[in-house]
């Protein structure tokens, strides 16, 4: 499978009357975008705004982040099975506006949305303080249910990214990245001496605001399944979740999955990358046993010598993480796990709710309960009072001077368990 990613580097974003890209400056057609999203009868109001790195801006509550893209060559369009007809992602050519992102906000659906600061100490904790953000603020029509609200907001973000991305169709990319990998049978013969690696990506699948979609199918209803890495990088997986903002995998992070990219980089040099196994995080014991056993069997059957396992969320799925680890290690497959920690505000608590003696190699992406104070920002997009209802916030989180006192839990993308950011934990 071969995918060409045509990267177009955005230097600045402005709001205007038509979509355009010239000399690094992306112009967004505000009215056009608004009209496009209002076609969904569940959405009552759309506001479009901008937030750029270094600005004194806070966005709250953030739902999802999506990279603007367009499919230029290939049968699939953006987000096949979700915003377009099902077809295989990962083939042909896509054009991407790099450094730009659509960020959805608007009235809160649930407890799990996040906060994003574009400057100050909060900015260092979020990878999305470094992107030029096009903020899409959505207000639902009165009377719709929470499930409808969530779906409308999720689709609006994807549609906005595709609408803006369309403008990249006929541009000459600044750079073409080629992702090409043949079938495992061929690649293994090509590199007979290199260790073979599978990426086992756990997806949260626990109901409203805790769902993930694979080609549009709710991953709750799936069995562990094998994808070519290109499919992940090209829109096969989208986020439908607002699990604690710190460690949910936003759609942007699925499209730029850092473990997939790192394994790709080393493919043929240090290792043979056998593919991505997507598995879910069930809420029943039977479901956990089924998915973990089947995921292990796929990895084993593919001939994996090692597996990187990444978790999404914390608490309940710690048990899936540990079970995956145990089953793989028992089969003689070496594992490295990526997780964050719930070590309490003082960092003195044990971090996980389940443990296995097999879990000897763990990457920690931060303590979600680490407390931070985020000084006031000149501009707030959304509603700062929402902090009291976010995971990581509490009654009294909004201080009289406009500062937010909250746990990292609330900060978007901070403790990414696909290792997208650079936060970690040291023991003192």
């Amino acid at each position, binding site marked *: 499978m071969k995918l060409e990613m045509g990267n177009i580097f955005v230097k600045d974003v402005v709001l205007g009357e038509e979509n355009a890209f010239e000399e690094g400056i992306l112009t967004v057609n505000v009215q056009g975008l608004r009209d496009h999203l209002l076609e969904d009868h569940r959405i009552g109001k759309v506001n479009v705004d901008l937030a750029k790195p270094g600005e004194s801006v806070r966005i709250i509550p953030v739902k999802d982040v999506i990279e603007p893209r367009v499919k230029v060559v290939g049968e699939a369009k953006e987000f096949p099975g979700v915003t377009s007809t099902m077809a295989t992602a990962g083939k042909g050519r896509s054009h991407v506006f790099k450094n730009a992102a659509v960020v959805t906000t608007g009235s809160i659906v*649930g*407890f799990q949305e996040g906060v994003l600061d574009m400057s100050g100490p909060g900015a260092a904790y979020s990878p999305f303080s470094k992107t030029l953000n096009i903020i899409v603020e959505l207000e639902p029509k009165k009377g719709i*249910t929470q*499930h409808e609200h969530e779906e409308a907001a999720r689709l609006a973000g994807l549609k906005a990214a595709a609408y803006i991305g369309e403008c990249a169709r006929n541009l000459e990319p600044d750079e073409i990245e080629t992702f090409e990998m043949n079938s495992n049978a061929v690649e293994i013969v090509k590199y007979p001496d290199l*260790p073979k*690696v599978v990426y086992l990506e756990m997806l949260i699948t626990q*109901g*409203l*605001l*805790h769902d993930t979609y694979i080609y549009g199918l709710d991953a709750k209803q799936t069995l562990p399944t094998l994808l070519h890495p290109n499919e992940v990088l090209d829109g096969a997986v989208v986020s439908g979740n607002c699990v604690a903002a710190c460690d949910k995998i936003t759609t942007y992070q699925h499209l730029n999955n850092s*473990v997939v990219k*790192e394994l790709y980089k*080393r493919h043929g040099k240090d*290792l043979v990358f056998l593919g991505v196994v997507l598995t879910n995080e069930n809420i029943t014991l039977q479901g956990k046993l089924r998915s973990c056993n089947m995921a292990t069997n796929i990895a084993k059957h593919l001939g994996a010598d*090692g597996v*990187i396992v*990444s978790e999404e*969320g914390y*608490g309940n799925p710690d048990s899936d993480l540990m079970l995956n680890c145990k089953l793989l290690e028992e089969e003689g497959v*070496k594992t*490295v796990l*990526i997780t964050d920690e*719930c*070590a*309490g*505000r003082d*960092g*003195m*608590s*044990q*971090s996980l709710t*389940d*443990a*296995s003696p097999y*879990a*000897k*190699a763990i*990457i*920690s*992406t931060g*303590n*979600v*309960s680490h407390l931070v104070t985020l000084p006031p920002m000149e501009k707030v997009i959304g509603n700062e009072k929402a902090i009291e209802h*976010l*995971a990581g*916030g*509490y*009654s*009294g989180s909004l201080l009289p001077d406009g500062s937010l006192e909250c*746990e990292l*839990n609330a900060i978007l993308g901070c403790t*990414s368990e696909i*290792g*997208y950011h*650079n*936060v*970690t*934990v040291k*023991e*003192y």
Partner: protein
Amino acid sequence: MAEKKVVYYINQFFGNIGGEEKAHIPPEETLGAKGPAMGLEGYLQGEGTVVATIICGDNYYNEHEKDAKKTILEMVKKHEPDLFVAGPAFNAGRYGMACGGVGKMINEELQIPVLSGMYEENPGLEGAKASIHIVRTGNSAATMRKALPKMGEIAKKLLRGEALEEPKKEGIFPQGRRVTVFSDKNGAERAVEMLMKRFREEPFETELNVPVFDRVKAAAAIEDLSKATIALVCTGGILPKGNPDRIESASATKFGKYSIEGLDDFVEDAYETVHGGYDPIYANGDPDRILPLDVLRDFEKEGYIGKVHEYFYTTVGTGTSVMNSQRFGVEIGKQLKEDGVDGVILTST
């Protein structure tokens, strides 16, 4: 700037009073530095003065811990020290227990930094290391000359109020505090690097040592349910609408206790969940789905159970640290026991 003051603790041996035959002596106080305190003071290079040295027999401390601590606290408090130092105890067990026990007590009571030194197998280490700073030393007093300069360096930093560096760099035992920091590589790069090390069978360092869990033994079965009082407890965040005690939707720091006297059903108008870790729609539609009060009341009317306890307890499980959970469990369990509850329906989500 006022001169920084240090109070020092040593046993009868290092206080030059005597060996085993003097291990029974109660705490006594000498002004100024004595024994190893003199050595340490030298390494402080004028940044602090040992204003008093307290000497206590090892046996006395271990046999009269409560009295010893009380006396020592009074002796230390009046000096208003900036730092308390004990030992080093090397691998001396009773001395280590005393240094650790006294050190922890002083840290808690006076809220000042405490420094000690021990060998890794000293039994005093485990109970004290979370609250005081303990320098790694050799296993006998023969290594005093190596231990004191290291303790001096740490003591100077503590007196200046400087943050200590990583325990490995400082040569101290980790306190078990998980501190969030930035790395120069992202998590994915670190993960693949670690896997490559495993393939090459090179040493690697996990970023998190997994905890060891204790197992709770199940209580004996209730002999006669028809006489039993049953309580409802949950971690699913069901509570009176409006969340009167402001329990957090994730990473809870408290639990709530609410009366259900005369209540037959958790109706959706009056109860809701604040839990941030699951789809709340069905719980809010009928909170009994999480905490089955309605069914329990039926059982009560039928005489299948004796009665439903008049209070239910609730908190949010998601993201809540194990340490907080243990605290909630102990407190709730104690209250239920005092109220004569025989059994608990404990639901999670």
